[in-house]
């Protein structure tokens, strides 16, 4: 799948963690544990540290960008993020934290499921390849 690059990263291989529900970083994510802290969220209390986190977009306060930065400092950040349409919160948070960020159209992002091993090629024209279901 051809992705749009928002924040560059090198070649990355990792396991996906997917949700179709938007994430609120401020007050919806625990930056110490590296989990979604909203009990109503599909990914509640599931660690996303070191994963390739896939979600449609973020919601809530733009201060959420600083929560992403804190996740990175605490070594609890995702290895990379894939959005359906990246917004200013995720994109500024990833930019200041050095977390690679890409987006994919709706019909393609829905092909991704949690637990897949995927490879992201580096910058330029980044591609996502599913290596293992």
């Amino acid at each position: 799948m051809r992705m749009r690059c928002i924040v560059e990263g090198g070649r990355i291989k990792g396991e996906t963690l997917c949700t179709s529900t938007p994430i609120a970083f401020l007050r919806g994510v625990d930056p110490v544990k590296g989990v979604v802290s909203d009990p109503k969220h599909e990914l509640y209390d599931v660690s996303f540290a070191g994963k390739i986190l896939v979600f449609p977009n973020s919601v809530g306060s733009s201060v959420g960008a600083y929560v992403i930065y804190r996740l990175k400092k605490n070594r609890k950040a995702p290895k990379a993020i894939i959005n359906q349409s990246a917004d200013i919160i995720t994109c500024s948070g990833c930019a200041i934290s050095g977390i690679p960020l890409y987006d994919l159209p709706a019909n393609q992002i829905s092909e991704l499921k949690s637990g897949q091993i995927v490879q992201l090629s580096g910058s330029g024209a980044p591609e996502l390849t599913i290596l293992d279901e």
Partner: protein
Amino acid sequence: MYLSNAEERALSGEKGTALQLAYRVLVAIGRISDAEKLIPIKWAHVSGVSHLTIGDYGLDFLKKISRSKGAKFRVFTTVNPCGMDVRNWDELKIPTDYAEKQLQINDCYERLGMANSFTCVPFQSYKVPSPGSHIAWAESSAAVYANSILGLMTNRESAVSALASALTGKTVYSDLHITKNRRPQKNIRVSLGNRKRIFGGSLDYGILGYFAGNNVPGVIGFQGLRSAVEIEEAKALSAAIGIIGSSGMFVLRSREKAETLDFSENEYQETFSQLSDAEKGDLIVFGCPQMTIEELYELSRSLQGKKLRKKCVVFCSSKIYDLATSRGYVRPIEASGAIFVRDACADFTPIISSMGASAVETDSCKGAHYMKRVHNVKIALRTTKEIIGANAG
């Protein structure tokens, strides 16, 4: 997105960490908004100042930026109110650990070269550039006012994007920076002809703005408003539009042929009851957004020689406070029993909670929306005149 050679070099880290991170932010935002280039700005206004909003997360990042080599604001930069009055936080019973962190945040912005006032109405205190100038303002109420009343061009920036603009002197050329995107996408027809009281004043305009921001995501066109709208009314309208939704601009007298929503007595009452859930309060709050010099003049006249029977807090910038002092507006207000809190934000300060109020009386729709959520109080929305009439003598 096109970058000049100098911008490419800064992005590669040649000019230091702060500038590199700032360009990374602008490039990433440029990509999501399909912008063709970056453009120079004349003014950056940065939000994310109170420790109640950015917390330790933001403080960490600001420390890193402000201490990195060569980091400074490259364009005139104002910053939002902080969480307390730095001249008398002690008297106001601000917890010491909070105050220490707030002072550290302020220190970061001062190192980078902010203008010397913490304010959400920056257009009140500094010379406004000519219409058509590009700026990058966070603080939604100020950004909406700048686009709609001052004819300046800005998107609704976030704390991080405005900081990136302050550090680089540039912003992403997209959305409201482009003239063709500044036409109303939906109209709101104000038809309140049959009311007992004529539509006007900060409270009424706030209610209208809250309704408009909630219903129109893009540029809002108003129809049916009287020809002259006062500064205070425009300020309240802009602030309320900025609370929810994503609209960054309104046009006061729209001639655009577009889908039209009616704002009549029903809509007014419905919106009012979303915000106001008490008859009266035990604390009065004025100054969300912070008071203008004209508002302080009016307040001083209406409180002249009177005593307030309730606690009352008035929020304004230290710059406007000093001006008001020299003009004699401050003394009658303080003599009535009201307390000034300078350079702070009514919504994001520990003061309201520490005063132990269970309900707040205010004329501000923005204040109503946030104080209810942040300080867990009930809200009695009333006009300034009603508040003073009921509580001072």
